[in-house]
């Protein structure tokens, strides 16, 4: 009987000590972790709505929408995160749109694990700048050649699935937020 008591006691003692230490470390590091995440989203917001200096968070359905205000506190644009599955795994895109929701200001791919050297070229400025001032009257489409209409973008050679994925993700999110005003 003594042997089994010793087993239970030692396991519980180790578990107790580890739980207390972990809780302490968690409380110490938690503020820094939250600050990091906030700063990351903030950088992305100010990049896609470049005139913005401050923002207010609001919700539409499931998604957070950041209302951006420029230096003389005028409402200058909206930013939100659109996410979906790309060629390999999840892709997250921060999208900045004009106040009346009919023009994209800019986009930034904030998270992706596409194939290195091919798919992850969606992060290059050349691809992301194509979305600037793209009209949202009709759906954005991907073309292999130089874009003709003002709602077309050119796919990255050799990574059409990833390029198409980014466009689909943005289209679906715009569709979803149509009602938001």
């Amino acid at each position, binding site marked *: 009987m003594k*042997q*089994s*008591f010793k087993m*239970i006691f030692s*396991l519980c003692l180790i*578990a*107790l000590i*580890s739980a207390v230490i972990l*809780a302490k470390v968690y*409380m110490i590091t938690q503020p820094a972790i939250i600050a990091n995440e906030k700063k990351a989203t903030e950088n992305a917001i100010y990049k896609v709505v470049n005139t913005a200096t401050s923002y207010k968070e609001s919700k539409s359905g499931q998604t957070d929408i950041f209302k951006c205000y420029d230096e003389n506190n005028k409402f200058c644009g909206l930013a939100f995160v659109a996410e979906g599955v790309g060629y390999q795994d999840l892709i997250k895109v921060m999208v900045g749109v004009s106040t009346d929701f009919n023009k994209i200001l800019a986009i930034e791919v904030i998270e992706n694990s596409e194939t290195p050297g091919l798919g992850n070229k969606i992060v290059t400025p050349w691809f992301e700048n194509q979305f600037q001032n793209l009209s949202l009257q009709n759906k954005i489409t991907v073309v292999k050649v130089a874009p003709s209409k003002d709602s077309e973008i050119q796919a990255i050679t050799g990574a059409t699935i990833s390029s198409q994925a980014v466009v689909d993700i943005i289209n679906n999110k715009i569709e979803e937020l149509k009602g938001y005003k």
Partner: protein
Amino acid sequence: MNIILLSAIVMVVLAGILGAILSFAYSKLKVEEDPRKEQLLNLLPGVNCGACGSASCADFADKLIKGEADISKCRISLRDENKVTKIKDLLKE
């Protein structure tokens, strides 16, 4: 409730239940085995990493006793020369 207290309670309860299950198992489910295997198991690292080709150290010990495997295949215990010699003498008996 304060987070430290909560996490302490959760972990102790979990460890308690698991400890009880293990101690019950050790007392009730004892299976008699070749005594040499017991000594071998104390000498082998018991890490069950599978790098020796057999799935666990117990399985590797059985193979050692039957002579199907050689101690050099266990890469972790290679580090310890006197342990390897001890295992070899044990197997020679």
